[in-house]
């Protein structure tokens, strides 16, 4: 989807969400500065230049938004991030599955983990409907991925029981 801008939430615009990136920028820059305080100037010059500008711009934006809130022209709220609210559980489930995918792949291997992730994610997103189709598609994609990446391109993806079995068979 195209980039979304913070729009009016109710009657007043919500400004909480748009302060996350500047706040993260400031925190990261301060951490970055702390890692180069004792470094030679060659390691500092770029970061101090770029970081100072980032902090100044971020503070300016935060200041403008705080002023808008104090003037009651805007409200602090993070609802824009979660819109549409009905999708929040699905989105969080998809994120949890993606995190699980990264952790499990090192033990279960590429093919099996990809199959499990795809089957679960498709089932979650379709609200449990068309389970058979989801499992079938997950299997097709996982096996196609295995054939393309592992067999054809020889990519060194983590191997699991499926890859071990196929290595014996082939």
């Amino acid at each position, binding site marked *: *989807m*195209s*980039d*979304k*801008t*913070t729009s009016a939430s109710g009657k007043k615009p919500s400004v909480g*969400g*748009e302060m*996350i*990136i*500047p706040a*993260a*920028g400031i925190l*990261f820059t301060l*951490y*970055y500065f702390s*890692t*180069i305080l004792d*470094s*030679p100037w*060659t*390691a500092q*010059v*770029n*970061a101090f230049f*770029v*970081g100072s500008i*980032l902090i100044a*711009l971020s503070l*300016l*934006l935060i200041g*403008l938004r705080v002023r808008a809130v104090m003037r009651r022209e805007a409200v602090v709220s993070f609802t*824009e*991030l979660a*819109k549409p609210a009905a*999708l929040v559980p*699905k*989105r969080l489930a*998809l*994120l949890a599955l*993606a995190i699980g*995918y*990264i952790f499990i*792949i090192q033990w279960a291997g*590429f093919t099996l983990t*990809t199959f499990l*992730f*795809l089957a679960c*994610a*498709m089932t979650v*997103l379709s609200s449990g409907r068309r389970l058979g189709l989801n499992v079938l*598609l997950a299997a097709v*994609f996982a096996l196609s*991925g295995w054939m*393309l990446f592992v067999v054809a*391109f020889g*990519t*060194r*993806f*983590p191997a699991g029981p499926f890859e071990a079995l196929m290595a014996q068979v082939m």
Partner: protein
Amino acid sequence: MDADWTLIGNLFLRDLGYWWLIIPSILLGYIVGAIPGFSAANTIIILLPITFAMKPEMALVFMVALYCSSRMGAGIPAILVNIPGTAGAAATPLDGYPMVQQGRGNQALAISFTSSVIGGLITTVVALAIMPWLGEVTQIMHSVEMIVVMLFGISLIATIASKDPLKGLIAGFFGLMLGAIGADVVYSTPRGTFGLLELYDGVPLIPALVGLFAVSEAFLMIEGESILTRRGMELMKEAGWRETWEGVTITLQRWWHVVWTSIIGLIIGVVPGAGAGIAAFVAYQQSKTYSKTPEKYGTGHPEGLIAPESANNGVTSGTLVPMLVIGVPGGATAAIMMVVMQYHGVILGPALFIRNPEYAFAPFVTSLVTYMLMLLTVLPLARYMSKVTVVSTVYMAPVVIAFTLVGSFVPRDYLFDMGLALIFGVIGYVARKTGYHTAAILIGVLLGPLLENYFLRALRISEGDITVLFSSTVGNVLWVLLVISVATPYLIDWRRRAQAAA
């Protein structure tokens, strides 16, 4: 080193005879280009035993065909699902993806294919004709000149930020800070790495690309049944050959745009280490700056798609020039080609034009033949490829996440990079939900480290004298062009307002 046109004609006929090798290489190139993390360079490495077993001219034909087609392949997912296959295609979705959402996917692909092929053909012919002079570009583009070229690309942040300058600049500088993660180039002091060894070499580009574009896109696309708008869905269902032909016509009508943006790619590609990502962003920025309708950029404007696609294919020809003329590869794929050719006893460099002139001109002639065959093979596929956009997001989102996350694993074989892609995905999601442009963040991550490297190199050579930035004639000309380029949109806007007020 002057072009021997009889030899070139013979090479052309010989390469046409290799159609049976070029067409499969083209199809392989589309696949590896389209998957983030895979690239022509990786694929040639995987297939090194085959290239060693081939005759040298066949190995060269295979590698060049794969190289050219992978560049075009990278643009396909960038347009259809907002996922650039490589950094060179990172500017492609800026206008390509909005076209898709409007149901003009078929047309967008045709524009991309036609501008890639024409851009590639033009730059190949230009490179063949003026190779000696292009070789000299490599000699005059030092760190100072490259700093200005980088700034051309970085100034795109301001261009992207035109709707909300403050947010655009914050996104760009945030990207520049993230791009500064890693050991410094002089003393290898770790900076901002959170103690993670995997970040000592800096933020790897593919996980950043995958996260900011693909993963965040997957989390957003589930808001609808399809990535298309309702009207877009209707148009896409009716789309056929007519839309493909429209795309070709639109590009041909803007032939001059293709020419000059592809030449930008050629010149930047000639500079070793510069790369297609820089060329695509610089071409996009220049295209918008001198457009009569800059306000249309980012909304699905054909010229915004033509510029990066022509430029990144121009880079393909450009990277071959220093490899052949001075024996210095212009990029990773060129470096691997060089290794293969050296294995076959072909030593690249100035003496090549005397000892083995057939190998000196062959890469460009093969590019020429490849681009011609590419147009014939890929254009008919546009209407079928574009149908992928009507697939339900229930299936598309999980597939995008799974295959791009594993794609981020490929370049370094680190599971860490998959996690990093997910973190960038969350950053991208928050950014897009709150009105920050992910392309501005990516420009920072991509160009920031390069700018720092060139800047420090210039300062070291001048022993810390900052005036070195204005010490070369070519550099000063580029500075003036940069100032003109940045100021032009504001001057045009100011004049329009003044005229409207009068």
